[in-house]
């Protein structure tokens, strides 16, 4: 019991240490230091989550049962790494340009951002990987049981506590950032440390076995030769199938895809890892056979899966045993953490979020912060997946040999391979092809590998296994299509993957992809030729504000603002909302995709921007050979369109100038006409005075006074013109002061009626005029004089009357002038405020500038003058804004 307690304490201290390291790494990364965090070595070490507890403990057991065959599990991934130039280089490039978050996301993005496909991939991944997580729980519990008194050890409780601990660690470090593309330094560094721990542990046990228990390499070779596994022949078909399926799983396992592609920063990491990771695998497998052989010698009949632990214990090497235990624990924890993280990203992005969004019924225009929803759904998914693993472990009873569950998971996720590889290399691959291939492969895997794994009498009865369903012998799970005698694993891998592949190709050839699918296909297959371009968006419907609101909800206010600001800067409009151009929408969609996956991001942007438009430019990028020529001509066309636009703008400007010139000519001719009339009479009368010598004195006086009055009129006209031009040019200086409205009206009344020549009666209500205004008193008086004198001059009534009424509104002061005359005909009301406009037959004493000047003045004073439509007579309304504290400019 004491040793069990020690084992648990060692575990807890180790986990606490990992916490500290992860925290320190996150702090370092947050400070911007620690470039080593994204070095090739850390990347290589993070790939080591491929080596789970299955490979740590199980490889020895596997070797003890089947000899050299265990090594195929490592040869497959080595082949993939050696061939990095072909597949991985392309995958990581696609991952970076398309901002891929998971393998489901990549397959969905490739096949037209189809969410159906993403859901299928996610479903298969969950079903395939859950047993694998169960396997890790089983191996941790099993290794704990080694340290305990077998009778008292409760595997259920131990598994439950392990599950809870793993879930907690993953939740704490895996969901700190929403952006799955962001490197999660805490987790990565914890995994790298665990990679080193498990390597050292296995090497230490190996060294101890070779040099401690045996007498060096030569002795070990002799013992291997003599042992029962030394004579085991290699099964060719199994060797090839297992190597192949391990290679496929290395690419397709969600957790491997996560560390290989999603967490990848640059090609350099991959380039180094291409030989460093196979070296790591060599080190991990170097001592497997020696440990197995020595284990079989010393511990015949014991569980070979635990030789790594039990061998040191037989020699009373407790420290070494604890180290080995830590190695196994590391393998299990790192695998569970990354696998649940990768699966949770898929579940949350492709299942939870779409359901949540559609349940809201508003698509992208939901209210509130979506980030919290995404994070919460990801956390719940992590918990769910880890506990699903736990329940699988309890259900399966934890009895099956470790290796068989691992292989089943490998074959399950390998079903993604045709869609993945076909998708990135073959433009003709379609969504239906991928869907049907995956479905067929999955069903065969389920039927011939997964369900039979529960054993005869488990899910499938012994009779079903032997006879097939309803006696259909060609459907026997281990002898499909009547082909018997194959190894069950080879049989399942062979049939599921080959039929998956052929269905995928055949259906792809028969179906037709939609435009988005074709475009995405071209983008992804030709990622090295034109990376960085996605499908475009039609711009009309997208409003920058809507996009901003949506982006804030997913990316958070700060990141969204930064994104929009940088785009505005790029569009050379710093400080403003950027134009929602096609490029910007693509960038935004990609940013969102890094948080919620391609399909959801696409749907969200589509909500706001309307349907995706594929521009001519992008279609051209799809075409291959003729693309260059076409693009060139397209650019020419764009340039010519731009020239046409410029020409049209110039034409507009020219029309405006012509209109202005016409206006100026009309004004000049009117001015000359106005000036000419008084000048003509002045000239005529002065000529009479000069040339006629026999004029009566009264006539002389009369002519001189005509000349005089015409001069006055001329002066007044020039004054008015000057006044108007000053007002129009805005050069007028206002002398703002406070005054009583009644005083101003008094002054105006006196000015008009002073000489007593007018018969106009003015009706006023002084009790309403006791208001103070803050304005240019003289100018306002000028306006009032003008209106009153107009009434005095033009009112046609026998007994002309002018009623001045004042009313104070909320924000304005109305002063209405209404006379009892004939009024102004409706047709002329629109022009009375124009320059030189006179109403009807006039006596010619006015130049028609008075009301134009009034209007200009009122504009300067921040008010208006307008014609007031009254039942009888002519009315004008002068409106001053905010009477009490008028801020007239």
């Amino acid at each position, binding site marked *: 019991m004491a040793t069990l307690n020690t084992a648990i304490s060692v575990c807890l201290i180790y986990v606490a240490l990992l916490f500290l390291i992860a925290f320190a790494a996150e702090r370092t990364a947050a400070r911007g230091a620690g470039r080593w965090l994204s070095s090739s070595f850390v990347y290589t070490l993070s790939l080591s989550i491929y080596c789970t507890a299955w490979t740590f403990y199980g490889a020895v057991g596997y070797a003890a049962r089947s000899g050299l065959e265990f090594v195929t599990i490592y040869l497959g991934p080595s*082949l993939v790494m050696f061939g990095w130039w*072909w597949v991985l280089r392309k995958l990581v490039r696609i991952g970076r340009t398309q901002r891929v978050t998971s393998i489901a996301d990549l397959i969905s993005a490739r096949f037209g951002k189809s969410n159906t496909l993403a859901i299928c991939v996610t479903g298969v991944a969950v079903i395939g990987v859950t047993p694998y997580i169960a396997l890790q729980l089983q191996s941790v519990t099993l290794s704990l049981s080694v340290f305990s008194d077998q009778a008292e050890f409760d595997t259920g409780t131990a598994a439950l506590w392990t599950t809870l601990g793993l879930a907690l660690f993953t939740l704490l470090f895996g969901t700190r950032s929403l952006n799955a593309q962001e490197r999660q330094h805490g987790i990565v560094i914890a995994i790298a440390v665990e990679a080193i721990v498990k390597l050292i542990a296995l090497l230490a046990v190996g060294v101890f076995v070779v040099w401690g228990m045996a007498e060096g390499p030569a002795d070990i070779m002799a013992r291997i030769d003599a042992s029962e596994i030394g004579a085991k022949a290699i099964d060719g078909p199994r060797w090839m199938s297992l190597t192949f399926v391990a290679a496929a799983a290395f690419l397709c396992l969600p957790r491997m895809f996560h560390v290989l592609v999603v967490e990848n920063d640059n090609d350099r990491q991959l380039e180094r890892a291409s030989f460093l990771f196979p070296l790591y695998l060599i080190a991990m497998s170097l001592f497997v056979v020696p440990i197995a052989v020595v284990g079989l010698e010393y511990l015949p009949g014991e569980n070979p899966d635990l030789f790594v632990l039990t061998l040191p214990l037989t020699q009373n090497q407790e420290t070494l045993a604890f180290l080995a235990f830590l190695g196994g624990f590391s393998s299990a924890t790192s695998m569970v953490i990354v696998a649940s993280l990768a699966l949770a990203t898929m579940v949350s992005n492709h299942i939870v979020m779409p359901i949540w969004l559609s349940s809201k019924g508003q698509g992208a225009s939901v209210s509130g912060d979506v980030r919290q929803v995404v994070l919460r759904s990801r956390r719940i998914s992590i918990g769910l997946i880890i506990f699903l693993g736990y329940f699988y472990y309890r259900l399966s009873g934890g009895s099956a040999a470790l290796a068989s569950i691992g292989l089943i998971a490998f074959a399950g996720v390998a079903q993604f391979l045709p869609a993945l590889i076909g998708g990135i290399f073959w433009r003709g691959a379609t969504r239906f092809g991928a869907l049907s291939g995956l479905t067929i492969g999955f069903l065969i895997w389920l039927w011939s590998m997964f369900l039979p794994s529960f054993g005869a009498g488990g899910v499938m009865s012994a009779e079903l296994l032997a006879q097939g369903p309803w006696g259909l012998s060609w459907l026997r799970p281990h002898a499909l299509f009547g082909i018997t005698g194959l190894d069950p694993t080879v049989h399942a891998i062979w049939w599921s993957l080959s039929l998956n592949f052929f269905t995928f190709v055949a259906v792809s050839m028969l179906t037709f992809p939609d435009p988005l699918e074709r475009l995405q296909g071209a983008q992804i297959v030709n990622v090295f030729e034109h990376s960085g371009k996605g499908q475009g968006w039609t711009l009309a419907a997208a409003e920058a504000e809507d996009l901003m609101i949506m982006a804030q909800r997913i990316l958070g206010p700060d990141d969204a603002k930064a994104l929009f600001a940088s785009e505005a800067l790029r569009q050379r409009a710093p400080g403003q909302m950027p134009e929602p151009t096609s490029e910007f929408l693509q960038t935004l969609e990609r940013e969102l995709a890094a948080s919620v996956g391609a399909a959801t991001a696409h749907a969200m942007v589509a909500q706001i921007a309307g349907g995706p438009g594929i521009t001519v430019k992008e279609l051209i990028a799809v075409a291959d050979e003729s693309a260059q020529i076409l693009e060139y001509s397209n650019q020419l066309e764009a340039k010519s369109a731009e020239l046409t636009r410029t020409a049209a703008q110039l034409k507009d400007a020219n029309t405006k100038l012509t209109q202005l010139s016409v206006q100026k000519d009309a004004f000049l001719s009117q001015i000359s006409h106005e000036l000419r009339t008084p000048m003509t009479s002045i000239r005529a009368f002065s000529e009479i005075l000069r040339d006629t010598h026999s004029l009566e004195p009264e006539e002389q006086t009369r002519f001189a006074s005509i000349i005089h009055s015409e001069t006055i009129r001329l002066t007044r006209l020039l004054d008015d013109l000057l006044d108007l031009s000053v007002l129009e040019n805005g050069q007028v200086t206002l002398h703002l002061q406070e005054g009583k409205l009644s005083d101003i009206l008094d002054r105006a009344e006196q000015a008009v009626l002073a000489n007593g020549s007018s018969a106009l009666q003015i009706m006023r209500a002084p009790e309403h005029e006791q208001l103070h205004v803050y304005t240019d008193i003289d100018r306002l008086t000028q306006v009032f004089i003008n209106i009153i004198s107009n009434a005095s001059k033009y009112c046609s009534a026998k007994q002309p009357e002018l009623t001045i009424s004042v009313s104070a509104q909320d924000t304005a002061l109305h002063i209405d002038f209404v006379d009892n005359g004939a009024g102004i005909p409706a047709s002329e009301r629109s022009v009375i405020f124009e320059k030189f406009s006179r109403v009807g037959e006039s006596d010619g004493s006015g130049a028609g500038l008075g009301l134009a000047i009034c209007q200009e003045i009122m504009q300067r004073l921040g008010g208006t003058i307008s014609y007031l439509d009254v039942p009888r007579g002519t009315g004008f309304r002068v409106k001053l804004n905010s009477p009490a504290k008028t801020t007239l400019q």
Partner: protein
Amino acid sequence: MTDRPAPSATLEKRSYRKRRLLDGLKILPIFATFLFLVPILGSQGAEHRLPSLLAYLFSVWFGLCMLCGVLAAWVSEPTPSQPPGTEH
């Protein structure tokens, strides 16, 4: 293609060598597959005992790692006359 001055013979040779090394890198996985499949060729006969197979497999494996490392390092090393991405 452009009016770039004709590269000297040594540079030509280097870029040629580099392209051939890239070919090597591309063919490497096929070569590795072949080597990894060798153990099953003689699996029927009894002359292939496990120790010799182990020695073969691990040395081939290690050799491939070294080869891959050397090729990758050479290929990624920039050559003055040939900017990356123009190997065809």
